């Protein structure tokens, strides 16, 4: 055991990757399963607020783009469930945990998408925040997770740019469109900032995660990085951040902001957000309605599957 632990620590120390067959501490595996499961569920549940606008997208082009983006999010969920499966937990188990309320997903997806600019704000702010987090996770110590992050980051940059393009159109449109754009920023700004998780001083899981290099940068560091990147983009659009205390600190070169409302964050995480029930009910219902498809596929495979390699 000591030999294995030493080998594990040496890999971490040298910034090399841990692979599925390597020995790892139980707590390392548990932390990864929890983090990857939450990440995977977020990708999949995140399809719902966007799907809400698919049939009402204002043009064929915007519908094609939104459909492609949602398909990517589903793909990201699949990559991440695969990562969890390398840690000996099945996709089915993870989905059962989601349905039983034992697994979490990002609280931002429990907010409704009320106008078309919300789709822009999600791509730009929500995916933008996710990118900052995921770029950092490309350097995570678990090999399969790191490789999934590299793939996901490549695909996410399209998401953020398509979102910003929607915001440009809305911000430069009619008075009503500008109001919708500002309304979307007002509603999504703080939830996007809270995607980075609690402050470093209150983050229950940060210590070991940093020691084992699962997480490479702290929640507050990443949040500040996102704010500093994004505030100038808000200004470019001629919109404002819904925070009277958001201003550039000339000394640090960073933007200051008001304290975040963690009571709201905890309420939403714990099931009391505007859409928590809808999101989970929808996922459960679809899973149930599709049962016959899985049963038919299993029966068909049993009748027709042969060992040779042709299709």
């Amino acid at each position: 055991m000591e030999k294995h632990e030493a080998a594990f620590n040496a890999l971490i120390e040298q910034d090399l990757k841990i692979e599925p067959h390597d020995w790892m501490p139980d707590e390392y595996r548990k932390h990864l399963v929890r983090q990857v499961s939450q990440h995977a569920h977020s990708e999949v549940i995140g399809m719902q607020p966007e799907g809400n606008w698919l049939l009402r997208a204002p043009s064929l082009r915007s519908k094609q783009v939104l459909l492609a983006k949602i398909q990517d999010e589903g793909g990201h969920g699949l990559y991440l469930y695969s990562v969890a499966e390398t840690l000996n937990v099945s996709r089915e188990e993870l989905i059962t945990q989601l349905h039983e309320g034992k697994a979490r997903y990002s609280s931002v997806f429990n907010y409704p998408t009320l106008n078309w600019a919300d789709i822009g704000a999600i791509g730009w702010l929500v995916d933008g925040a996710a990118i900052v987090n995921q770029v950092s996770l490309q350097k995570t110590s678990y090999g399969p997770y790191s490789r999934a992050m590299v793939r996901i980051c490549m695909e996410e940059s399209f998401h953020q740019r398509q979102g910003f393009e929607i915001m440009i159109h809305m911000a430069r449109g009619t008075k009503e469109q500008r109001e919708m754009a500002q309304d979307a920023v007002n509603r999504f700004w703080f939830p996007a900032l809270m995607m980075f998780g609690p402050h470093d001083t209150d983050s229950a899981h940060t210590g070991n995660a940093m020691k084992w290099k699962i997480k490479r940068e702290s929640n507050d560091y990443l949040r500040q990085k996102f704010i500093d990147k994004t505030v100038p983009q808000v200004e470019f659009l001629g919109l404002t951040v819904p925070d009277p205390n958001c201003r550039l600190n000339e000394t640090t070169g960073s933007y200051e902001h008001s304290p975040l409302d963690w009571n709201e964050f905890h309420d939403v995480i714990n099931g009391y957000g505007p859409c928590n029930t809808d999101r989970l009910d929808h996922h459960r219902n679809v899973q149930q309605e599709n049962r016959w498809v899985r049963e038919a596929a299993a029966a068909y495979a049993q009748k027709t599957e042969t060992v040779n390699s042709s299709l």
Partner: protein
Amino acid sequence: METGDNIWEVFIQKKPGIAFKHAGSVHGYDKKMAVQNARDAYCRRGEGRELWVVPSASIVSVPMEDADAYFDPQEDKIYRHPTFYQIPAEVKNI
């Protein structure tokens, strides 16, 4: 896992002449579904011109317990490397 829902490892060849590279894994009830799922999950942006799927359960690997014994000889048989041999400086192109 639900009956019949198998995991397949996906390998993609980007261009002719390049080795197939492991991309990740997908679920699929049969090989046709596995290939289609692999294409949808891993080849949405011209990542490949051909792909293989292999049932995960068919992959055989060296147990990590034995890895030292399997791979150690690479370290001590230095006569397998060209730099082991002394060639006079005046001999060229060897």
